[in-house]
């Protein structure tokens, strides 16, 4: 039993890494730029399926990863064409719908095995499950590191300042010469690419994916990570991802090991809902507050 628990724990750490990547991608869009992408799962799914299909065809891992990011970015670009001209509530509806339609297409057109899904050979072939999980942790966190640094660099630059300005007041940003349509589109593409990387890692680690793995609840989970951790703070959303994952895995473990009168998975979903509403009421800025863009220091001190 302790071995089982340990494996569960390692599994959880891998998933924290993968979800953190997804959370960082949403953070670029929502946390910094204020875009309401309610179809995050679609971009995650594009990455996952691209990876799965290419990996099955025997394509090299690195190429698979790049292709996943690129195809998700392309899908993001496609969706952004009509969607980013719209009001935020329409944007939410359209992105949400895109995810649902994409899933329908994959199911019905037999892409990646249709309803039955597709199996993927993992890249790590170690003797023990423990070694495989540890290797996956390394892989997930390596990519998380890359995405984190990228996101930090973008967010803490003049570009990131403009992203925030668009979030605060689009008209004012436009009045100061910013082509908001172009910025929003770029951010959407960046966010989609990162979500695609997350999806690819998810496919690689899961060894089997099917349309049912990409329900809108996944989008909601990612939103919860961002809202809870602190929109506009990359460390915050990683923290959020960790908290939500720990919560989720605990419920799953509870279900396996303890007999309860209620299904802990259901209770977990219900608690998630309540938690989000509480966050909206009492801590809309999340656990960690946003940090400002740091300009270079003046060489001579300013005399106040």
């Amino acid at each position, binding site marked *: 039993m302790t071995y089982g628990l340990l494996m569960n724990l390692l599994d959880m750490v891998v998933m924290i890494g993968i979800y953190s990547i997804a959370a960082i991608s949403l953070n670029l869009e929502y946390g910094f730029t204020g875009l309401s992408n309610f179809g995050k799962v679609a971009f995650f799914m594009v990455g996952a399926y691209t990876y799965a299909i290419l990996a099955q065809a025997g394509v090299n891992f690195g190429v698979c990863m790049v292709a996943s990011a690129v195809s998700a970015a392309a899908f993001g670009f496609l969706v952004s064409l009509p969607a980013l001209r719209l009001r935020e509530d329409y944007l939410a509806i359209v992105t949400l719908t895109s995810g649902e339609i994409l899933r329908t297409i994959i199911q019905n057109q037999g892409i990646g095995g249709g309803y039955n899904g597709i199996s993927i050979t993992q890249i790590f072939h170690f003797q023990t499950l423990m070694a495989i999980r540890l290797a996956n942790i390394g892989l997930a966190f390596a990519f998380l590191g890359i995405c984190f640094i990228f996101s930090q660099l973008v967010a803490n630059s003049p570009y990131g300042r403009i992203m925030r300005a668009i979030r605060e007041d689009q008209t004012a940003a436009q009045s100061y010469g910013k082509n908001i349509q172009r910025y929003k589109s770029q951010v959407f593409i960046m966010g989609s690419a990162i979500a695609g990387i997350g999806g690819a890692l998810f496919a690689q680690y899961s060894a089997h994916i099917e349309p049912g793995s990409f329900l809108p609840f996944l989008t909601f989970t990612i939103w919860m990570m961002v809202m809870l951790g602190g929109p506009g703070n990359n460390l915050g959303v990683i923290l959020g991802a960790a908290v939500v994952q720990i919560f989720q895995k605990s419920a799953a473990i509870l279900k396996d090991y303890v007999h309860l009168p209620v299904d802990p998975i259901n209770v977990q979903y219900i608690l998630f809902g309540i938690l989000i509403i509480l966050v909206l009421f009492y801590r809309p800025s999340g656990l960690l507050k946003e940090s400002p863009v740091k300009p270079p220091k003046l060489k001579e001190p300013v005399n*106040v």
Partner: protein
Amino acid sequence: MSKIDPMILRVRDVVKNYGGLCAVAGASLDIPRRTTIALVGPNGCGKTSLLKTIFGLQRADEGSIYFEGESIDELQPNEVFDRGIVHAFQFPRLFNQMSVLDNMLIAARGNRGDRFAGSLFSRKKWREQEETMLQKATDTLKLMDLTRLTNEPAGSLSGGQKKLLEISRAIMAEPKLLLLDEPAAGVNPVLAKKIFEKIEMFRHGGMSLLIIEHRMELVMEFANWVYVMDRGKIVLEGRPAEVAASPLFYEIYIGGEPGGTDICVS
């Protein structure tokens, strides 16, 4: 037009309707370079609407607008900004969760780091640029007595300070033509006067200004020319002293029934 237009801005017969109601009913005006033009008139006469139309925040239904001899009717606000016009809002529209300094730096032109590729790959370059911009921002903030608030979030400022920051930010953008919508509204008279003195300084530096203002003592002191608007039309123009002495001006502001029709219904 090959020669330099002596007028930095020409507005010709601009009409703007909202639904069935007409806000601007064929207004024309000229702004010579390096002047301060005041636009006055009773509430609801269409001044703010005209300013928004010039800046591209809304499309004119009719008429045309030329900036430095070129038509700018079809441009988006960001393109109008690129040409060199800056618009400061009547009710400050600051980036509230961002620091005062960030609000200023947003307005700076030509930052390499504003572009995606530049932000990642020209880090050294934009860091150098930002040093110059930072200097300019701190100087401007100092001029407006906002120095001690440099790192505060803009949302935490008082009403008057927000107004000052709105204007500072506009100045940071180095406009050729600055559109100011009631810069002195909601600030105390001493501060209002100070704002205008600073604006005057920038005019000497080469800027042109179109200012909506109600306080006649400020208009008298600082404007080079006054346009009076009533019910969407320019009804009077002249030097401040001439306008203030004109019976029509008194009629519009204080009493009497200037001719005209009901709000035009289109």
